[in-house]
């Protein structure tokens, strides 16, 4: 049965966005007034994780609602599309609601990064791969034009997938020479400091990120951090244009805005750049849900959230049933409970992130992070006591019971997956 709902939905994403790279969460090196608005005018989730911290797999999870080991998209090279026998966000909404479904920007959900043929969506503008500097302004302008011409006769889901700060990958590639002095009149005081875990290394695993950019001096590393924040500001400016269109047209109070990123950015933690690891700098992402006037402003530091929750949440708000193939949960009941004044966060003890082309998995519980790779190496961190993940507890006798419990949870999670037929089984510890 089709259900007509009047509330619009805007799914707004950035790309390669470190969870702390916003002034709203206390970062002094960047100014992000528009993201700050999103983080302060709804529920902002602190413990939010990418389902697979690299572009294609994360987006395949968003739009299929199923994990990488189920949908088959385990790395950026996979272009086969998610499983044909599983529902996808656009076509499912088309079948079950009257929502108009519009897409602008980066797709990459197990297919090419940009496409004018996305199942269930009307694509108004694609983009330019690896050039968010130019194409984000175009993607935001097309989104803005769509919002401004909306006449209210039909509710919409507008998906706007911006590309920045992903261009930091190009900054890194183009900065190959050791830096002895700062360019552009910059002074050291202008640059962010290195993170506390910059030099931290511990036991090696096959999948553990290797130190990168060995030729870089400390100035290179700090200039890279400075550059990253400029990329973040670029996308913030474009988010401002989209929010401005919602405000100008009076749609801001009738539009649910879901804001997140596909994955994070290493930001010099462990001498690394980019992503694709289970560490927080790579796997943890911004996440907020805004519906001004309804959802109260709240900084949620407890609830575990996954990118797998996006599809069920959007479907739930649109009034569509949630297909059983969705691995995540709708966050709408949690939002409704906050509105009613009796908070009831989702009842789940952990979430799981998959990494490294199906060779590693990370299980995040309320206090701990457990990581296992297919070479049997493991990591265990107390995230409350050790948020920079510098003290591996797998050898600590006092945490043996915790380790065993987290191993069992991950095994239980793996056994519950309807694994994609092309993927090999992941060895169980």
């Amino acid at each position, binding site marked *: 049965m089709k259900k007509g709902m009047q509330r619009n939905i805007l799914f707004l994403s950035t790309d390669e966005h470190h969870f702390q790279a916003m002034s709203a969460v206390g970062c002094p090196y960047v100014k992000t007034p528009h993201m700050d608005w999103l983080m302060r005018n709804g529920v902002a989730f602190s413990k939010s994780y990418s389902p697979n911290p690299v572009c294609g797999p994360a987006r395949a999870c968003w739009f299929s609602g199923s994990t990488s080991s189920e949908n088959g998209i385990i790395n950026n090279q996979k272009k086969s599309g998610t499983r044909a026998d599983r529902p996808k966000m656009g076509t499912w909404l088309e079948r079950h609601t009257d929502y108009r479904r519009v897409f602008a920007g980066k797709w990459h959900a197990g297919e*090419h990064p940009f496409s004018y043929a996305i199942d269930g969506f009307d694509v*108004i*503008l694609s983009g330019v791969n690896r050039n968010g*500097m*130019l194409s984000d302004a175009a993607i935001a302008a097309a989104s803005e034009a769509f919002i401004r*011409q909306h006449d209210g006769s039909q509710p919409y889901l507008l998906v706007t997938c911006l590309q920045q700060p992903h*261009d930091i990958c190009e900054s890194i590639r183009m900065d190959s020479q050791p830096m002895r002095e700062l360019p552009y009149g910059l002074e050291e005081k202008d640059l962010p400091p290195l993170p506390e875990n910059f030099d931290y290394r511990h036991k090696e695993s096959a999948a553990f990120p290797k130190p990168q950019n060995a030729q870089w001096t400390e100035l290179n590393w700090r200039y890279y951090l400075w550059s990253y924040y400029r990329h973040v500001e670029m996308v913030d*400016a474009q988010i401002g*244009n989209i929010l401005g269109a919602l405000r*100008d047209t009076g749609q801001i109070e009738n539009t649910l805005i879901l804001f997140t990123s596909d994955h994070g950015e290493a930001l010099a933690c462990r001498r690394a750049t980019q992503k694709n690891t289970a560490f927080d700098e790579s796997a943890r992402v911004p996440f907020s849900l805004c519906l001004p006037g309804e959802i109260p402003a709240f900084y949620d530091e407890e609830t575990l959230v996954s990118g797998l929750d996006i599809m069920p949440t959007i479907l739930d708000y649109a009034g569509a049933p949630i297909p059983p193939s969705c691995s995540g949960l709708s966050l709408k009941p949690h939002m409704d409970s906050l509105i009613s004044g009796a908070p009831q966060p989702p009842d789940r003890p952990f979430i799981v992130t998959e990494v490294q082309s199906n060779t590693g998995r990370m299980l995040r519980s309320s206090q701990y992070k457990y990581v296992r790779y297919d070479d049997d190496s493991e990591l265990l961190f107390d995230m409350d006591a050790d948020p920079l993940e510098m003290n591996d507890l797998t050898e600590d006798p006092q945490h043996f019971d915790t380790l065993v419990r987290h191993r069992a949870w991950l095994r239980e999670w793996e056994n519950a997956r309807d694994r994609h037929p092309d993927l090999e089984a992941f060895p169980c510890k």
Partner: protein
Amino acid sequence: MDPNIQPLTPDILARMRAALPSLSWPKVDPESSWRKSYRIWESVGMGWNDNLQSRVLGSLVLERSPIDSSRFKLKVRSQLLMIHNPDGPYGGLREIEADLECELDALATPRRWRVVNRFHRHGQVMEHLPLLIEGRFEDGLISSSINGRPQALEIAAPWSNEWCLFEALPRMAAGDPTEQRFQQLHQMRSALPDQRLFRRAEADYVSSHYGPLRCFSQTGYANLPIDYWVDDKGDLPFVTNLHTAYIIDDQAEAKIERILKDKVMLQFEKEELAQ
């Protein structure tokens, strides 16, 4: 990582075959009527030769005509190709046509403007997605509207726009180039505060292809450093910004038309390919 990769300069663009070593451009009086056309090109820095990620992305055409001794008109046409997959095809396009009336001051401050945005899909303009920006700057205040609806803009003088800076740089280079601090109204929509435009003499060099080049740089909020390369006559043949370059090219629009017609990616300049 290719150890030779470094920030773009005009000679690196020549080495990467994005600009012809024999490239020349007409010398014009910066305060006269002129038309300049730039090809927008990018390399994602994967390597020097046969870099499949290098490509033509679009064009920027500026036409200047004086109004009187204190103002001029600037007509802008910008095209940005959308790329569906690594090898094309190119079926999407974002086009901007702008008419600005500017002050003949250091930053070419806009006084009146009309900016039409168009989005093309499969060769057709998407008429249902209009985005028309109109505005004026009077008595220190900006009034602007989008699709006829007033828009709140928090911006104050000194301010400018990136298209206007292409006009202002040659005039600035011809005079006494003092550092400018200003706000940028990006595409006449996004206010970017805390911009700085300054001479960067340490980056000047004598190009083996293009002669003496002087560098002006812009840094600021929401911008990676932008380098403006001015020649010995005060013209602006190159602008580089991370992995993107604006290269003076009077065939830029024709190249975009050809790409859209043939749906074949254009990467390098022909003369270089023949070598």
